[in-house]
């Protein structure tokens, strides 16, 4: 009984992943894959940005590391010889299956997050945002210059196209399951307490650094996993794929849905993905009866920008604020959390 909803959800996802590619047009399968990857990336960003209030701008850096790590580990040996001839021996002879490569990518990102988080998570408010932006810049520069591993700014290509709807749906479920169980456990309560009042949190025995570091590292783990999935979906990419444009997109989805809500992350990702698909098709021009609307390229981005502004004006806490589906919280705290999430939006808070 307890797991009934979970079983239903899993069955639906299994059905979608199993039947989807056969029933749906390929276009929609691709939209769903990107949607699922973005759910992984944005909900993992929400753990630090929404739950601990540490407004990180470094997330695409972890996505990039995940994509490159998994890409290097899974590349066929012959292709490795051709594309990355200078790879050190221990990597040159390795070709891993998808799952272990994805897990290693996630663990690698989590370790990087711990190392940079130990100094950075002591900062707060705007300082931590700027510092994590610095991390993103550093990752980009390192990837461009580490030609031995990444082919530099040239396209990294030849990555096996492992990512399909099944993998993405599976990882999205695992991500949301783990994040929701953490966010609504004592660990997540510690994160939310440090966000609301770090001084009071310390006075009740909560150490700030471990609480923030756990959110940051766990978020980085799933960013790495999502990055691996994205890499094996794109098949070829360059450091520029994981930069400011990706950051803006992730933040938009997160803030639109509601930072302190995993449900909100899913809603934000879905809303923006579907809207931008619809708008993208409209901007190619369409005809309404006798009325012929010409193609206006770029109009979809402008429309999205307007929608974002309107939401922020009328619902600055995002569509969901900090409310969750009872499914996410285990039916425990949902009623208590309340829609009052106000003065922590934007992360400019100590």
């Amino acid at each position, binding site marked *: 009984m307890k797991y009934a909803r979970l079983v239903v959800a899993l069955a639906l996802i299994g059905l979608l992943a199993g039947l989807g590619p056969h029933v749906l047009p390929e276009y929609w399968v691709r939209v769903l894959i990107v949607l699922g990857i973005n759910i992984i990336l944005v909900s993992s960003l929400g753990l630090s940005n929404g739950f601990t209030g540490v407004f990180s701008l470094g997330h695409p850096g972890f996505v990039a590391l995940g994509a490159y790590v998994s890409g290097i580990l899974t590349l066929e040996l012959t292709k490795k010889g051709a594309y990355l001839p200078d790879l050190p021996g221990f990597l040159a002879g390795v070709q891993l299956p998808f799952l272990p490569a994805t897990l290693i990518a996630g663990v690698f990102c989590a370790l990087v997050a711990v190392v940079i988080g130990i100094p950075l998570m002591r900062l707060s408010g705007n300082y931590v945002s700027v510092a994590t932006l610095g991390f993103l810049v550093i990752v980009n520069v390192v990837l461009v210059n580490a030609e031995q591993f990444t082919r530099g700014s040239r396209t990294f290509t030849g990555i096996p196209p492992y990512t399909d709807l099944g993998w993405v749906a599976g990882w999205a479920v695992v991500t949301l399951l*783990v994040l929701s*169980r*953490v966010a609504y*456990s*004592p*660990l*997540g*309560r*510690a994160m*939310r*307490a440090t*966000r*609301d*009042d770090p*001084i*009071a*949190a*310390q*006075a*009740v*025995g*909560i*150490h*700030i650094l471990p609480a923030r570091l*756990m959110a940051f590292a*766990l978020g980085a783990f799933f960013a790495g996993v999502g990055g691996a999935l994205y890499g094996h979906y794109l098949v070829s990419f360059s450091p520029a794929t994981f930069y400011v444009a990706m950051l803006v997109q992730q933040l938009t989805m997160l803030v639109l849905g509601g930072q*302190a809500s995993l449900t909100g992350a899913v809603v934000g990702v879905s809303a923006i993905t579907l809207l931008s698909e619809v708008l993208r098709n409209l901007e190619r021009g369409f005809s309404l009866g006798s009325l012929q609307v010409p193609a206006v390229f770029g109009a979809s981005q402008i429309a999205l920008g307007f929608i974002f502004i309107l939401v922020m004006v009328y619902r600055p806490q995002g569509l969901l604020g*900090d409310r969750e589906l009872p499914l996410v919280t285990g039916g425990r*705290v949902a*009623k*208590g*959390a*309340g829609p*009052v*999430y*106000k*003065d*922590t939006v934007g992360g400019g808070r100590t």
Partner: protein
Amino acid sequence: MLETHDLTKSFKGLMALKRHHLRVGPGEIVGVIGPNGSGKSTLFNLISGFLRPSQGGVRFEGHEISRLAPATIARLGIARTFQGTRLFKNLSVLENVRAGAQLRYPVNLVEAVSGWGRARAHQTASEGRAWGLLELVGLAEVAAQPAGSLPYGNQRRLEIARALATGPKLLMMDEPAAGLDSHETAALLQLIRRIRDQFELAVILIEHDMDLVMNLCERIQVLAYGETIAEGTPAEVQADPRVREAYLGGVA
């Protein structure tokens, strides 16, 4: 139980607290009074680890604690409330108290994700403890409301419940009666006495409300400009000419 020895704090040459000595025994209710800027809040911040002493130190149950982190000190059994309250505003009333209770019921990452091990037992225990405390302070009916939406008097009570949830041996309260009317203050006095008896706590109180201090405290220490100018029973302190001078500004 608690002892400050030679405790001194200066902020860029300004002596906020000078060579302070205070001993608090188990179950005692001690008041610290003094005009504004006399070093009372500095004393609390030194004991609870939010400030480091310039000299001297704090001993709690025989251990030197003045170099420990605030969260570590809370774990040792010193809880505090803040001037003007500091709640987790976006968390529900119940969640606020559970945030206090959870240091006695730790759960690690694997347990939190899997629900194995201590997770369930600790969940139940901390929730039960939180409900008990909410009933004690009379907030069980509003348990699901966001803490930030409570009226001021109730926020005070919630902060006390959250502090008690940490399982303290010593409770430090910074101006608990500020902003309360005489009726609420009387209820607060009853509550503090009841808490002390039920949980066998020692209490240190910073307060400007003389009625409350004189009625509640067994011993009172008076600070002025960082110096201890008097210490004794309420009657002794009230009779002390230096105390009158400090409060009346040398007119007496």
